[in-house]
């Protein structure tokens, strides 16, 4: 296809003539010549294969000569000789009226809205200079729906339906779709049941793309502030790998800026007694999951027909909930290793607490995550002892940024600080957990050396890296060809899972991340407003951080070695099975109508 000469069409937009490929839309063509037509429902993350253009909001309408009505530019293909006006009086009046209509059915609580300052509707109202709403009338009201991770406040829904595309087309979760008709139409779970009775995985991709405050995360900042204020409590914090490459955006830094040191300094200023790193637990995950992989592989190589291969990674809570809902017949395939967040919690409350002589109940573990599903994960019953959770509160990257601003900390001028020891030491292998392909690359680094007893010449496995939806790679492990599959986005994961169910999968190990891009694109990250260059910048930053580490293989982390020596014994020991592994549940019956 690439060799074929694309057919070009010539069109005139606002007096400027431009040649574009046949099939392009008026919106695309305008963009080429620097005309930014405003939109609300349109979303095009071409690099990630995510496109949403229902032509529903009607904000992007333009005037096309010879056409009876106005044309939605985001879905109207260009035609040769087309003459388009994007700002005629007719267009400006129509666009403004449509926005006024939208606002006439929207709450006026911007002052206290979680999305204020980050809201596409708000910025558009500002851009179009709306000062009053000429239409008064009924406003649609819906029951507010709170789940462990996500709040749905559908009074603020403008029916752009981006969330629906993320939930159905991209993630194939099917928790959200349009219900009701006309003025009452809204996006909701089937029968307008609560989200926690739906197959929602809490991946939070709906939040990532919501242009208004209709979908937001449950805010736990207040609980964390209270814990920090409680003199009886020792409050420790862990930060996930993908947070450090995105947090800077909230403070005006270029996407891809690495702020690990500033983040540690800020957390210390906020009053956390110990500033630790989830990366430490990521190294621990590799020890456990890598050993499990080697165990299954060895059995397989010894001719055991019953061994479950491929092994699937299990660090992503949205992915775990996804297979519990959709593949309950395959619960024995994923690794039993807990996620790094939960491994950290278990080690903190069972090992570190004792080390610093603090009672479990008096130790509060807070996690900073690029994710909203982590809130749900730490609330899962199996991750608590006598009602006391291993991880008490999980804050998203956005909540942390807000917390820092609230505490008058000038983030940009902070000097870099290091994490505390012992649970703050980590390797480059742990950092790359933050992007798609990272977990499996880290596992390969360790599994290779343990299995072969040889040193890796090169720790960078370029063949595993990338942002394509589904990738496969093979790694030569001393003559054995280890076949690896990688998927990010649950829709892509579903394809690999269906292959396994049909007996068509050739992989030995598969890494799955629920969010497109992996954790760098997590539902708790700073809003990217559909700009994929931001995701790419974070992606590159993750590997820069890895390359800058002196130790880049999990099994070489000295504090991990010490942990096994002092406490756990060896990977997959009885104690580590008790503390670091988990089991999965059939969640088909969790979906019901109230």
């Amino acid at each position: 296809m690439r060799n074929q000469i694309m057919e070009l069409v010539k069109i005139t937009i606002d007096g400027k003539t431009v040649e574009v490929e046949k099939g392009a839309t008026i919106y695309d063509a305008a963009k080429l010549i620097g005309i930014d037509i405003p939109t609300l429902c349109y979303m095009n993350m071409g690099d990630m294969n995510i496109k949403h253009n229902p032509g529903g909001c009607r904000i992007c309408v333009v005037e096309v000569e010879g056409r009876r009505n106005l044309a939605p530019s985001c879905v109207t293909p260009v035609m040769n000789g087309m003459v388009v006006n994007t700002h005629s009086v007719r267009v400006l009046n129509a666009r403004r009226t449509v926005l006024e209509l939208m606002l006439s059915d929207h709450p006026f609580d911007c002052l206290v809205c979680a999305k204020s300052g980050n809201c596409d509707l708000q910025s558009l109202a500002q851009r179009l200079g709306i000062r009053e709403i000429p239409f008064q009338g009924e406003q649609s009201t819906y029951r507010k729906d709170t789940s462990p991770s996500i709040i749905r406040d559908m009074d603020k829904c403008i029916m752009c339906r981006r969330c629906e595309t993320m939930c159905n087309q991209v993630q194939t979760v099917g928790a959200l779709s349009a219900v009701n008709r006309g003025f009452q139409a809204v996006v909701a779970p089937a029968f307008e049941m609560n989200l926690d009775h739906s197959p929602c995985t809490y991946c939070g991709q709906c939040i990532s793309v919501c242009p208004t405050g209709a979908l937001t995360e449950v805010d736990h900042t207040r609980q964390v502030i209270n814990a920090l204020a409680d003199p009886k409590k020792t409050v420790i914090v862990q930060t996930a790998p993908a947070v450090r490459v995105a947090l800077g955006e909230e403070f005006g830094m270029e996407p891809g800026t690495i702020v690990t040191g500033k983040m540690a300094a800020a957390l210390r200023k906020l009053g956390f007694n110990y500033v630790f790193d989830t990366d430490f637990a990521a190294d621990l995950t590799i020890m456990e999951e890598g050993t499990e992989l080697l165990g299954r592989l060895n059995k397989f190589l010894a001719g055991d027909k019953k061994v479950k291969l491929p092994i699937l990674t299990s660090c992503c809570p949205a992915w775990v909930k996804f297979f519990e809902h959709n593949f309950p017949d395959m619960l024995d395939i994923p690794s039993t290793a807990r996620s790094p967040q939960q491994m950290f919690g278990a080690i903190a409350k069972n090992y570190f607490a004792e080390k610093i002589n603090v009672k479990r109940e008096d130790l509060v573990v807070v996690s900073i995550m690029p994710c909203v599903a982590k809130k749900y994960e730490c609330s899962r019953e199996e991750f608590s002892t006598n009602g006391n959770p291993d991880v008490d509160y999980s804050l998203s990257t956005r909540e942390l940024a807000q917390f820092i601003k609230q505490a008058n900390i000038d983030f940009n001028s902070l000097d870099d600080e290091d994490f505390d020891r012992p649970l703050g030491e980590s390797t480059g292998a742990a950092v790359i957990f933050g992007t798609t392909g990272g977990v499996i690359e880290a596992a390969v680094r360790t599994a290779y050396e343990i299995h072969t007893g040889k040193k890796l010449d090169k720790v960078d496995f370029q063949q595993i890296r990338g942002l394509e939806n589904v990738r496969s790679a093979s790694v030569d492990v001393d003559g054995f060809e280890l076949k690896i599959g990688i998927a990010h986005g649950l829709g892509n994961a579903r394809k690999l899972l269906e292959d396994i169910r049909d007996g068509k999968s050739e992989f030995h190990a598969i890494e799955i991340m629920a969010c497109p891009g992996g954790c760098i694109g997590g539902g708790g990250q700073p809003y990217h407003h559909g700009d994929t260059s931001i995701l790419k910048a974070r992606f590159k930053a993750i590997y820069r951080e890895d390359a800058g580490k002196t130790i880049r293989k999990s099994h070489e982390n000295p504090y991990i070695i010490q942990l096994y020596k002092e406490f756990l014994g060896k990977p997959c020991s009885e104690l580590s099975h008790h503390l670091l592994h988990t089991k999965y549940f059939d969640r088909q019956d969790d979906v019901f109508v109230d």
Partner: protein
Amino acid sequence: MHLLVCGGTGCRASESSAILDNLKSVLEENNLENEVQVVKTGCFGFCEKGPIVKVLPDNTFYTQVKPEDAKEIVNEHIIKGRKVNRLLYLNPESKEHVSDSKHMGFYKKQIRIALRNCGFINPENIDEYISRDGYEALAKCITEMTPAQVIDVIKRSGLRGRGGAGFPTGLKWEIASKSVADQKYVVCNADEGDPGAFMDRSVLEGDPHSVIEAMAICGYSIGASKGLVYIRAEYPLAIERLKIAIGQAREYGLLGEKILGTDFAFDLELRYGAGAFVCGEETALIHSMEGLRGEPTVKPPFPAERGYLGKPSNVNNVETFANIPVIINKGPEWFSSIGTEKSKGTKVFALAGKINNVGLIEVPMGTTLREIIFEIGGGIKDGKKFKAVQTGGPSGGCLTEKHLDTPIDYDNLIASGSMMGSGGMIVMDEDDCMVSIAKYYLDFTVEESCGKCTPCRVGNKRLYETLDKICHGNGTMEDLDKLRNLSNVIRDTSLCGLGQTSPNPVLSTLDNFYHEYLAHVKDHKCPAGQCKALMQYTINPEACVGCTACARVCPVNAISGERKKPHFIDTTVCIKCGACFEKCKFDAIYIN
């Protein structure tokens, strides 16, 4: 001899099934069951005077027949050869009985092409359809003509889509025929949803084979082997008859593999709609058939390129299909000789509202509204004055006296601020408030909007609310400007035909009845006396005798006064129920 009994939904509701049974048993009692055949037919159209029983061969047209009249019809007409005069239609002007429908004002100006068999044949008997040239067109197409030739005939006939938009049918077929795909579909849109309209239902109930035959012809022309009829589940009788007809056509080898011995294969399936008006829009209809939410998507791609299950699909309305076999049989020249320059053939209308002859009519394009309302429709009920006629269903416009002599076709109706739509025609008289009428239609579109695009979802709601405000006497002059601007924007920016036309009732009433809006806004009066909030019941003290009847019937004790002295209504308490007005024997209560 034949006795044709109307089996349409309207006449069935008036016990026409019992008439049929009674006729049969009376004939049996007289041992006439072999001489006289009783046939259940489709709708005759003259629903105002239903149930209809027609006697053949003398064409006697009995109206408003009751089950107990069966005996008299058999004893008098069949046995003694004397017409039952009391059941004949009475010409309202000459006051004479009319026996043959040909001489009735209602039928005189009609030409029946789409409805050619309705009221003539038993729709549940394929032989009766075949005896009236049924399936001849299909045979001709698949044995003597190439697909391109068939399309050419349809193109030359000038037939345009009867569902509302009036897109040239032949051109639509041609586009679909040129799409390349392993599977194509012919879709029949039987999702008739306009309030008061029943054109498609009558065709399907009265002549289902004409649609089946046409769909097969379309399948042959565009290269589709599968057809789907999307029909609303609220049409059980049409569904039943369609099912029977499909079964019979399969039995006769007119559907299925190797039709009439050729290599052409075609079969039909039914898909049921849940009654959403928007599913009449072709993309919404297709999504509904696919099991998705019934809401439209942007065109292009058109269904002819990417339709049902992503395959090229040709969607036509029931009435459009019903015209096809006749065009093939009689030729495109014959068809295009009927009608106006740009609108050929006939159009079926469902005539309703304040009109004497409510019913289903089919007239040549170019017939004027005056002919339809005053000649076919018999004028306005109760001798009242004509005020407006609303054409094109809920999103059509209201036309007035000045439009009465405009020949009706697609283009003239649009130029007048209304549209053809699928053929609803509702007549209004002097008692109708045009602001309320606009509000009524907006209420419908607000209810039926799918909610996908902003202008239709929120805009129509705001239009409705503003109209409601005006009807309550709270409107301002600014509101009138807002109504117009908002209507124009909704029309200009909505995604599908529903939103693009929903403001028509507002715009056309603003254009043609602005004085009524002004009366509501400036004088706080409803000239037609329909807006309850603007009504005021008052007692004329000179006419009131103090009988106290009104005070006793008032449910909120708003009326006071001593016996034998004039009474008084406290308007702050009055709920305007009208009970006193009804009760007063002395015409002492009047409405302001």
